């Protein structure tokens, strides 16, 4: 086969000499080419030089609100870090990560990617991550591992994650004093990286709006059931223990043709509840929420429910627990406009970015006081408020200062019932709705609490314990935290330190601490 190159390999001396006119033209073209090259070079040098200088002199970004993390820090030089390659990699990461206007460029890049596909219409679907069909061989849900506040393990140069708390799901932390017990490592599948972790997200346009949802793949929930059963054995039989897992939005908004890629959460909860001690009270709220799925009960741009969804869940619980419950009309609604939560951070979908939502939360109409404690139940501050600053990039953080604080709420309700809400971030939004139902409400996160759960229930006089964790926490590794807090510091006594507080810690600043 003759290649095009062969044409150019003919002996030039065999060709007739160029005519003077043709030579003149060739000379003119050569001059033109040379001038064009110089011009082109000037433009290129100008572009490269300007960009290089601007990237150097403009103030560097330090935080990413859309990714909810601190950007990379300049690495420390040590011989070890140099020879391992960490230092040089860290320098490049620092430069790349802290580009001036980091979030603006990220949003621009994500918007550019919208051009890759056909224009979107209603029922358009995008998938991010590795989507598997739900089969018998594939029964385990693998939730999105969310980068979270991790003071020690987040490496310099890799970019640490903002202490966003409510924004995500903690997958990395081990309780402060875990009892090694028979299983030394209760968290076998820790999966945390610095950033850009994406797993199984569906983004769909419904009724003119984009919605991002994590896809639930089911799971046995054995660890969850076992931990609750264990707790049931260890606390006084008079204490009511409730299991009220929170379904994820894919239960209600997955189109029919994609149903085989998500597990049915209602069936999953029923199956888990069947494994519970009969003295534990199960509450499957899927049907209660399903009745309101036309209302904005779930965030479209965040992985949490909207407070309205939490309201219906709390209502179902109050009805089951036989306590009074105030109608939502008695609450004062507040709106965080144009919010854009985690589903955008994780999926980087420009379609979500183009369609922000309003996050509407509700202030109780009844008086209450709130006290905040750290994870070890030391007094932190009291400001009589369950709500913090509004952050449109992380609207759910408005609740309880984030995830990790233990909170006590005292109300005027005189029914002698004391509630302990054991939760992950999903439970946060339910708490304000209990202010007309219980005299005292304690709130603690299964992932952060450093005290013994059995002692807390006993020593604080708790009458009702409700577990409100997301479906992922029921079937995933987070369930291991429940057993860990049952085992840790076993036999200790717990005293509420509040009436004699130490120096008061200032409440967290918006977006900085949760």
């Amino acid at each position: 086969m003759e290649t095009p190159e062969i044409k150019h390999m003919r002996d030039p001396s065999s060709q007739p000499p160029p005519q003077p006119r043709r030579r003149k033209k060739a000379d003119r073209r050569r001059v033109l080419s040379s001038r064009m090259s110089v011009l082109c070079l000037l433009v290129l040098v100008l572009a490269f030089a300007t960009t290089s200088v601007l990237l150097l002199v403009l103030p560097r970004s330090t935080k990413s609100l859309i990714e909810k993390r601190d950007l990379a820090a300049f690495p420390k030089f040590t011989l070890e870090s140099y020879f391992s390659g960490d230092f040089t990699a860290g320098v490049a990461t620092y430069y790349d990560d802290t580009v001036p206007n980091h979030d603006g460029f990220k949003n621009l890049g994500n918007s550019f990617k919208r051009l890759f596909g056909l224009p979107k219409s209603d029922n358009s679907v995008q998938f991010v991550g590795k989507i598997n069909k739900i089969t018998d061989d594939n029964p385990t849900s693998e939730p999105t591992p969310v980068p979270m506040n991790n003071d020690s393990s987040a490496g310099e140069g890799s970019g640490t994650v903002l202490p966003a708390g409510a924004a995500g799901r903690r997958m990395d932390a081990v309780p402060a004093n875990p009892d090694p017990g028979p299983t030394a490592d209760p968290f076998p599948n820790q999966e945390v990286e610095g950033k850009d972790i994406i797993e199984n997200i569906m983004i769909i346009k419904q009724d003119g709006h984009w919605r991002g949802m994590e896809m639930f793949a089911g799971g046995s929930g054995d660890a969850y059931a076992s931990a609750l059963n264990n707790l049931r054995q260890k606390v006084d039989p008079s204490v009511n223990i409730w299991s009220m897992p929170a379904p994820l939005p894919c239960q209600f908004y997955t189109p029919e043709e994609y149903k085989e890629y998500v597990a049915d959460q209602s069936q999953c909860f029923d199956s888990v509840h069947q494994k519970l001690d009969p003295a534990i009270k199960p509450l499957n709220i899927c049907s209660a929420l399903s009745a309101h799925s036309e209302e904005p009960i779930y965030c479209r741009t965040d992985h949490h429910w909207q407070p309205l969804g939490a309201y219906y869940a709390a209502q179902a619980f109050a009805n089951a627990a036989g306590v009074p419950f105030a109608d939502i009309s008695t609450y004062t609604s507040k709106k965080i406009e144009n919010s854009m939560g985690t589903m955008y951070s994780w999926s980087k979908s420009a379609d979500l970015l183009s369609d922000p939502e309003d996050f509407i939360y509700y202030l109780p109409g009844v008086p209450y006081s709130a006290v905040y404690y750290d994870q070890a139940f030391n007094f932190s501050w009291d400001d009589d408020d369950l709500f913090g600053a509004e952050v449109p990039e992380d609207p759910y953080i408005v609740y309880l200062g984030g995830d990790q604080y233990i909170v006590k709420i005292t109300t005027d309700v005189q029914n002698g019932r004391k509630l302990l809400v054991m939760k992950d971030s999903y439970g946060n939004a339910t708490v304000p709705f209990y202010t007309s139902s219980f005299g005292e409400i304690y709130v603690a996160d299964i992932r952060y609490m450093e005290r013994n759960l059995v002692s807390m229930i006993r020593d604080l006089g708790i009458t009702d314990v409700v577990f409100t964790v997301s479906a992922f926490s029921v079937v995933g590794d987070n369930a291991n935290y429940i057993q860990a807090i049952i085992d840790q510091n076993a036999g200790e006594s717990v005293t509420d330190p509040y009436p004699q507080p130490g120096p008061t810690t200032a409440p967290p600043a918006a977006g900085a601490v949760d």
Partner: protein
Amino acid sequence: MVFADLFFIYIFLPLCFISYFLAKTLPAKNVVLIVFSLIFYAWGEPLWIVLLIFSSFLNWYIGILIGKNRGTGRDKVAVALGIVIDIALLVIFKYSGFIVENLNGLSGLSLPVPQIRMPIGISFFTFQAISYILDCYWETVEVQPRYSRFLLYLSLFPQLIAGPIVRYSVVEEEIESRTVTPTDLCDGALRVIVGLSKKVVLANNLWVIVDSFFGKDISTLSFLGTWYTVIVYSLYVYFDFSGYSDIAIGLGRMFGFHFDENFTHPFACRTIAEFWQRWHISLGSFFRDYLLYVPIFGQNRKYISLFLVWFCTGVWHGAAWNYIIWGLYFGCFIFFEQKLGKKRIKKWPLWWKHIYSKLVIIIGFGIFYFEDLSQLGLFFKNITAVGAITGAAPFFDPITWASFQNNLFLIAVSVACSLPLLPKIKSFFLESSQDSLYIAGRAGSLIACMGLLAIVSILLVDATNNVFLYWRF
């Protein structure tokens, strides 16, 4: 350090160019290039830079020995020694784990498997070194008397870590005497931008598709989903690797070096033999020139040599069985085409030639992807519809359809760019006798490249995985 990185583009490269053009003499410019090349390599391999320097010194000295002992028989010993040490280094760093694992598997032994991290680019600079000492022995190049110049050849950062495999003869003269014109700088820079765009705009985003389908258990991946993904993967490998080659060639040009082309639109081929004349040309020509025609098996055993070449091509790509299968797979088709004869193949209708060659190439990339042989088995089950027929996997799935709709233009642009369409448009303008068309062509390519540079820079803020595929080879 990687090319597709803001730090490289806006810190390393400007500093390198400023230093290079401030140096007044060629030796000084060469020193600048050596220093920046070593920094470039040490950035990713602070420890194994010692290996690069050792390899360069050894091969340079072997060259000296060959030159001094020409015709005495000692030159043979020197060249043999050089090749043995070079291959031994490659085997130790790249294949020792694979060899021991297979030895254990075959013999039932449980020898400890060496866990050696492969130095970046070792396959490329070792092959360049081998080509140099063989060329010295065959007297196709002059022995380089100065170590610094040989070090520059071997460590030159544009081609150091992922090729192309530049022969010493290609840069021999330019190491000692070269000029850089505004046209070199301009064309080189535009080529770099084109290469970056192939990597950052096309390859990185094609990889997202591939990873979402092949990066999991593929037992339930549909027949059409498997075809869709492997086609996208073929495009990904092409843009990733040819993008790197474009950047290397462009950077070389900006420093006055003229490297040979490494890709010439391989998907436009009509036969498998032609594909390999267009794909990773520097590797194919290396094996052709240094292995195929070496009369190891005698004159009448050309087919053994052929399969040896394809075995080596496979092994070169990685220490796993799938690469060996991949190499031999192509060897089989080359053998088939040779047996059939060019005349008979020429008689095939054009459409059939294209279907035949693309099918072979695309399925070949499936073999190339799956290092896990059980996954490779599932891949064959799904791509041949056996999975769909037996009910193990569906024929079609809605996820594939959604992905196709969401990436239609990305794939269409990728297919268009993989064919020789843009060069034809470019030559229409640049080879026109009308000055206005010529100016429009030059201005158009400049504007397009400036736009691409802006897009690349923006996307690089968002990029997390910019490692070029061929780094691991």
